[in-house]
């Protein structure tokens, strides 16, 4: 589904990703771990098409297409979703109209009629049910005044509404207490199907107790320096990143 080969990316002349390669297939959950400042969020941003980043070389193929020519919104409509590390507050734009617009844009892209107000509300209820989110975030402006936990839950809720083929969750676990973490993990697990894939970017092994990855990758200094199964996460937790750095050198 996603195939990244020898990707070099810079921002404002500074190279962040230095030859990163990654293969993600349908049905898989990948975890990308690594210390701060190694390029994890840059990777997420480049996949979804943030324009501040410059791809110097390498390629990103998604469902057999080169992603480079697609805008942010086209990538979203093609099924790529980013769960933001820092969801943006948008005062004055209600969650309901924001999501309804997004859902209808996706439907239009697939040649479907837009949902009516009633159909949309029913869909929201169904998806809330599915991921077991009961708090009412939808009557408020997008992320405005939300607590850290509410913002992250809201990202998962949006994911549930849009049902992406490829979800990238950028440190969705940061700043969450254990209950919120469970809600987020539960949502991800509920939304998992044989046809979609999830890339979980995280600092800590903790989230991976609830979302069981098929593959764990360690991102260090702009490259993936080690890949393995879920046991790699435990090993990292135990030995720390220093252990891998030593192995590298």
């Amino acid at each position, binding site marked *: 589904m996603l195939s990244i080969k020898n990707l070099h990316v810079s921002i404002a002349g500074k190279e962040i990703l230095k030859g990163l390669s990654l293969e993600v297939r349908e049905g898989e959950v990948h975890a990308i771990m690594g210390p701060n400042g190694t390029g994890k969020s840059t990777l997420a941003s480049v996949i*979804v*098409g*943030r324009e501040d980043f410059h791809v110097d070389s390498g390629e990103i193929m998604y469902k057999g297409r080169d992603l480079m020519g697609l*805008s*942010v*919104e086209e990538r*979203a*409509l093609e099924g790529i*979703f*980013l769960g*933001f590390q820092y*969801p*943006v*507050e*948008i*005062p*004055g*734009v*209600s969650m*309901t*109209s*924001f*999501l*309804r*617009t*997004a859902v*209808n*844009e*996706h439907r*239009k*892209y697939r040649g479907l009629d837009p949902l009516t*107000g009633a159909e949309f509300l029913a869909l929201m209820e169904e998806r809330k049910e599915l991921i077991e989110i009961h708090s009412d975030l939808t009557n408020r*402006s*997008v992320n405005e005044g939300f607590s850290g936990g509410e913002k992250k839950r809201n990202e998962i809720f*949006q994911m549930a509404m*849009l049902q992406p083929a490829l979800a990238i969750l950028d440190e969705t676990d940061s700043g969450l207490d254990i209950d919120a973490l469970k809600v987020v993990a539960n949502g991800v697990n509920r939304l998992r199907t044989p046809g979609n894939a999830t890339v979980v970017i995280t600092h800590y092994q903790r989230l991976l107790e609830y979302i069981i990855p098929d593959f764990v990758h360690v991102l260090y200094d702009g490259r993936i320096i080690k890949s393995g199964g879920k046991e790699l996460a435990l090993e990292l937790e135990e030995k720390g990143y220093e252990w891998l750095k030593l192995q590298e050198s």
Partner: protein
Amino acid sequence: MSPEKTEQVLGRKLISLFDSHRNHISRYDPPFLQGIRNQAMESFRKAGFPTTAMETWRNTNLERVLEKDYNIIFDPPEAPVDLENVFRCEVPDFNTHIISLYNGWYISRDTPLLTLPNGTIIGSLAQALREIPELAEKHFNKYAGAMGNGLISLNTAFAQDGVFIYVPDGVEAYKTIQMVNILNRDDDVMVQNRNLVILGRNSRLRLVHCDDSHNQQPSFTNTVTEVFLDEGATIDHYKLQNLNNSSTLVNSSFFYLEKESRLSTHLITLNGGLIRNESFVRLSGPEAHADVFGIYLMDKNQHVDNQVFMDHSAPVTTSNQLFKGILDDQASGVFNGHILVRKDAQRISAYQSNRNILLTDKAVVHAKPFLEIYADDVKCSHGATVGRLDENALFYIRSRGIGEYNARLLLMYAFAAEVIRRISITPLRNRIDDLVKKRLRGELAICDQCVLHCSQEEKRYSFDIDMSKI
């Protein structure tokens, strides 16, 4: 000798027109008015038109406007104007009493001065000055005269007609009054109408005032409105401006608030060549309160200038100003908000905020808050911001599959919505909501889309984006 400046040419022409038409202009004036007119003309002779050398006019230059040779209409329309042909109200569920000024003259289907069973008087100012001069005399030019600049003096000297509204003590005008100013001429005209609104004690009025062009003809409207609120009176006032790009409008409104009265005024500027709104508010009795709100959406070479003078002259008075604007292309904007708290006017709250979004590098805005405070128990705040659309928010919206164009609209609309949602008349709010969306999409036509004055049946407008819940 230096060549004569163009504005001096127009000024001289107006002075000479006044001298030659003085008797004609004042032929129906009650005695009190003649002295006022002559005095006002003297003031104009001295002051002339405002220039950029004046502090509050520094960023609004009238030179180009004054280059034109405008015609003055000294007589009302000869043939009766059929209102049905001029406009039909298509705002759903908006049940209003409609009155209209046609090229500055009051036109009516029935009588030029109507007295409703509850005592409310609505009609032509010229007629009111003739029929009920005592009532008019108490308030006419009492508020505008004191603050005069050249343009206000000129209006006082020349104005022959306008709208007169009187709401007696304790009466709540049962319908919203819609005042439509229509300009429909084939030549360049200067229109100077004068409006007087008197609210008795504990009375209540909702007034919607539209300025609307009918064609693309250049015009210069210099309008003055005086509103007197007696104790405990309430007015909910809306000024909607949707004029062509060759038009100039200087709209000076004076609100005089007695104790416990409440003003809410909204300046909604959708289109116009050069628009200047001056709002003078005098809070002269305890517990008077004023809300002055504005939204402006300008593009091309349009210019909008909002001036607010909030005069807290009595203790325990409160005021709130919120102006928001979006400027595209080479459009320019000005906001000058002056709050004056006079000596001994204690326990005052006065707030002011002006926020702007500039969509291009060439759009400009000059924002200047000015607080002048001579009392010590005062809560005041002011703030002005000028910015771009939030790039992070745009990215976030687009990352959910909403295209850049709609993402920008969504953010602009959300920005404007803070002012729109304060419109308390629901059908009007819905209609303005639609107009703002159209305006933001660049789909607002001038001649037939005034809020209250639509020549064709219109469906409730909806975005691909459903913004109804914003």
